[in-house]
């Protein structure tokens, strides 16, 4: 199996797009998660809202995924 230089660079770019989104999500979720746990210690009934807020930053990694797919599509990788 051979791979062109362009495809390799595009693959790295797609990977970096996901990487950036995932790191961003992680940083945001760590803050929300710890605050959420603090809230749950006081008010366990608020678990629904905590989960909801916790998953909101996941949009960042989805953006990363979108960019990665766009790169992969334009480079003809997928």
């Amino acid at each position, binding site marked *: 199996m051979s791979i062109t230089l362009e495809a390799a660079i595009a693959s790295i770019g797609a990977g970096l797009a996901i990487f950036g989104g995932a790191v961003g999500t992680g940083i945001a979720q760590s803050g929300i998660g710890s605050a959420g746990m603090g809230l749950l210690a006081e008010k366990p009934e608020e*678990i*629904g*809202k905590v*989960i*909801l807020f916790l*998953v*909101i930053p*996941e*949009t960042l*990694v*989805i*953006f990363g*995924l*979108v960019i990665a*797919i766009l790169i992969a*599509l334009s480079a003809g990788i*997928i």
Partner: protein
Amino acid sequence: MFRTEKMSKIRIICLQEDMENAIKALHNLGMIELRRSKLQLREDQQSDYSNKLNEFLIKVDGAVSILNSSIASDKKYKNAKLKNIKKAQTQNQKHLSFEELSKKINSDAKLSEVYELNTLRKTIEDELKLAKYAKSVAEKLTNIDINFSKLSSDLLHIKAFEFKNKDVKSILKKLSAIKNIEVIHAKNKSDTVLILAYPKELSLDEIVKSYDYTELDLSSKYLTGKPSQVISSMKKLIEKLESQNNSLMEKTKSLYESSIVRFLSYSEMLGIELSRSNASLVFKKTDYTSIIEGWIPTKKQKIITTTLEKSLNKKVFIENIEDKEELAPTLINHPKFLRSFDYMLEFFSLPKSDEIDPSWIFILSFPIFYGFMISDVGYGIMSLILATFIKRKTDPNGLMYNTATLWQINAFSAMFFGFLSNQYLGMPFNQFFTGFQGLNWFTDISYIAVISIVFGLIQILLGLVFGFINEYRHHKRKLAAAKLTSFILVLSGTFAIAGGLFGALSYNLTILSTIVAILSLILTLVLSGERALEVIDLISHTLSYMRIMGFGLASVIIAFLIDFAFTPKLSDGPLLFIFYLVIFLLLHVLNMIVSIFEGLVQGLRLNFVEFFTKFYEGGGVKFKPFSYKRVYTKE
């Protein structure tokens, strides 16, 4: 379909002498949420009757609680309790008036017996605790020659401390530096007990507290004589007390069997009487009439009027009133099997009674998103089994039970999309019974991305339409117009991107879409005012639906990798076959658990965040009718 139940506020005026009958009729109907009238009239304070009912209720509920706690750890009696309830449902006790009920409760010897037995059991349990403690202290001191009876003095402190063996040397060294102190050791396996006798004016706190220690209480009434004597007498006493306790436990259990249903029927009757008595305090009064107001489902007004007229011999006046200050409570009437969706909606926030009720969109879209994200027949079947198991083990009103119900319903959707994707624990199986090959998550990824975005567009556009209706209803014309222009922006923007980036439309149509998108963007920004930045959400929220593809792809790829690495083969020999089979199943269960959790959270999130934020205010208050539920009694 998109409205909560229509509610009306009514005012009921009846003669004071008929008030009790009116309350009874309304209570039996269970269709009105009572409100105190805002008319400036006289109102009653807490009545003696309510106080008496409360007293009786505390007495009866106390006995029920004692009986329940006495059998809590005994599965056999828990089952007996269920049987009793069933028995009660077939042999209902007729509802008694308070006079009859109070006489019956006062003369119920079994009720007093429950309290007497409980007091006795508590005394025995306290004695048992003391005896066990005395025995344990004596056991720690068996290897020294002391007499507990002589361990008291007016001039000396005589205390016993238990230290770790490793600390004893250092403590003894410190104690040897103090004058007038007598030390007796009793070394055990890991601890050493030191009995110290020292003058009362001396304090050893400073020395002792720097070590890990436990002080033994030597003042127990059972610590008399030598340790061996204490151990022997305590053994006999513990045996005797345990036997007494067991016999009392048996009596309590027998009381439970014979009386719990009767006590529960008292509690039910008292509870009903109390809520009626409390309702009478909500009534306002003139010299001859009583007045009450309340919210009712509009379609039930006729039946309420007819019933009240019948119960009060037509001596009742009912009128509809308009209350602009108070928002009607929210009543959502869905079929019973959809109750878990309502629970989730309530968990988030109920719609207000005057706003669009999006629950049907939620009920339809949530299983679709979930199913598309899981897309595996095998995972669907496994999650169905897991959810059924969870439901059997959890409380029907709890979060886990309702979540499991959603998993059960959504499992069918996962199976359906699994069939469409030809995924059976990550492997294709459709070829064995149909020629349909379905979507391929590896090669058809661009189609799947488009499907995800289309799901998003449908929900976002629908959300904007709902937003337009809500704002229009609330007379916020400018914001309503902003929702409309946002709708046009999303639609034309989609056409512009489809034409410009992917060449899906003709050149002219693409240009036209772009111009419309730019114009609607400007209009939206102008009309939205301080909420102009929400325009960005239109793009981010639409793209956010790509998570359906993202999480689905992750689940499918992991399943594929598990199959690639661990599919068991008979050619590997029986041992390796079993080994691979266990790993294969474990990893699939793990992937399934992660997938169903993500499917649930992301499915809810797409509805509650991306969809609801376009129109939803929430904060509705659930309709709580003035009603009761009878299990042990009948009218």
